[in-house]
């Protein structure tokens, strides 16, 4: 019975295996990006970017219906355009990046919903807003896996300047010009992973599988590498458990995945080793030194 509930859906149905593979790819790439978004105090920037990809995806939809390639390409273009425009405005005017993004993403979201409404139905709009990981075909899965691979490779290249720019940006500016390009590359990775998440979780929840695992990891470690590992595992386990929950209860897959991650987050807030509420209420006896 346990086998039927937890393993059976994946051995029996190909669409569940594809969904599981997608969710693992999303976790491997998206969770480390989420950790950096959180540590760079850009969690809400990620959310804003998620909305910003909507008009591009909507134009793809307008041109070729629910074609995931067209929607992905449109989303990538729109996301990059907003990321670069907001980054350029922030760096050249002194406006904070989140404020700059807020203006762009609100316009993008309004434009995106307007475009979808022109041609589509409410069901199409729901698909764009909340995604459907269970409807993923082989080609889309390959796109998701390719994007995840690119993310990990680029992250490896910019890892060092990204860390130094996060902790001591002035120092990096005195020893290297890598800070600006690393930041822009990081924004590009955010967009790529949001488009990836968009396929599975939709515009509104795409950032969830990036930020929630990062938040979970923050409560269990003070070491960056360990935090990234915890975030990846938390995302993958949330994805797996969310798929099982969705299969067994008919809750839509995207919200199911995010709800499971939210439960892990609440457990971490309560019992986390680093700053968890219970740990603070009952810290144990003080140490000798």
């Amino acid at each position, binding site marked *: 019975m346990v086998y039927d509930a937890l393993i059976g859906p994946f051995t029996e149905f190909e669409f569940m295996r594809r969904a599981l593979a997608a969710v693992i790819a999303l976790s491997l790439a998206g969770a480390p990006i989420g950790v950096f978004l959180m*540590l760079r105090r850009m969690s809400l920037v990620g959310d804003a970017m998620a909305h910003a990809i909507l008009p591009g995806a909507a134009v793809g939809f307008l041109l070729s219906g629910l074609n995931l390639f067209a929607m992905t390409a449109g989303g990538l273009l729109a996301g990059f355009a907003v990321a670069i425009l907001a980054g350029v405005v922030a760096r050249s005017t002194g406006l904070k990046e989140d404020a700059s993004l807020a203006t762009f993403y609100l316009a993008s979201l309004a434009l995106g919903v307007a475009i979808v409404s022109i041609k589509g139905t409410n069901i199409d709009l729901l698909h764009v807003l909340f995604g459907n990981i269970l409807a993923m075909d082989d080609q889309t899965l390959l796109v998701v896996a390719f994007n995840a691979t690119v993310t990990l490779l680029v992250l490896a*290249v910019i890892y*060092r*300047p990204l*860390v*130094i720019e*996060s*902790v*001591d*940006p*002035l*120092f990096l*500016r*005195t*020893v*290297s010009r*890598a800070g600006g390009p690393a930041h822009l590359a990081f924004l590009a990775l955010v967009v790529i992973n949001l488009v990836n998440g968009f396929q599975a979780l939709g515009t509104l929840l795409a950032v969830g599988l990036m930020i929630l695992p990062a938040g979970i990891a923050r409560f269990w*470690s*003070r*070491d*960056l590498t360990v*935090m990234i590992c915890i975030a990846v595992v938390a995302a993958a386990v949330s994805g797996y458990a969310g798929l099982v929950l969705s299969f067994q209860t008919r809750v839509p897959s995207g919200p199911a995945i995010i709800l499971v991650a939210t439960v892990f987050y609440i457990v971490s807030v309560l019992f986390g080793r680093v700053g968890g509420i219970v740990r603070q209420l009952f810290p144990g006896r003080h140490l000798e030194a």
Partner: protein
Amino acid sequence: MAALHFHNVTLGYDRHPAVHHLNGEVAAGALIAVIGPNGAGKSTLLRGIVGILKPLDGSIHLGGLDSRDIAYLPQSAEIDRSFPISVFDFVGTGLWRGTGLFGGIGKAAREKILRAIASIGLNGFENRPIGTLSGGQMQRVLFARVLLQDARLIVLDEPFNAIDSKTTTDLLALVKRWHGEGRTVLAALHDMEMVRTHFSETLVLARGPVAWGPTAEVLTPENLLVAMRMCEAFDDSAAACAADDASSRAA
């Protein structure tokens, strides 16, 4: 030989000068204190020297130095101490000139980092996250990173602020050691007694140069009074600088 040349340098923000019309040279191997009240432009000048801030006017020439020959110790408020990075890794960033984007931290580099941490008296702190350090310990960590940078020009922004006398003494000894090794050191400071005792040359700033020269001649009550009377606020309705017009006409 000069390590730095200031040619009619004006540095500031939104066209408002924080350091106005500074001319002069810093000799290689000099030990210079930069003093002045809050808002006098000390940090702005140091940021201009290390290339973080571009001059609004004039220029700063690094006498044959590459920008990587400069080590900068910022005020610790500029550092995000909530970021999960250990003392070892943070100090290790001082090796950027050798490692760059991809260079590994080998055995020799690890030993260098450990030696730097030990030399500022933080043995045993290597794996501690920087967020758990006291203000004085963090200041020592910043000095350890400067030590690793092995730079010919060292720029210190208020390096002894809010730290105890023992830490100040230890870190001041390090500054004098750098000076003894022939490195050029500029430090923004507030402690007049320390400046009088340990720094041979002083620049008094008050949004512009008040005096610059041997400390004993520069640190006079008259100069300090001029600096104290400095107008701190920017004037939003100020006209374009007439001196700049004159200098461009002359050019």
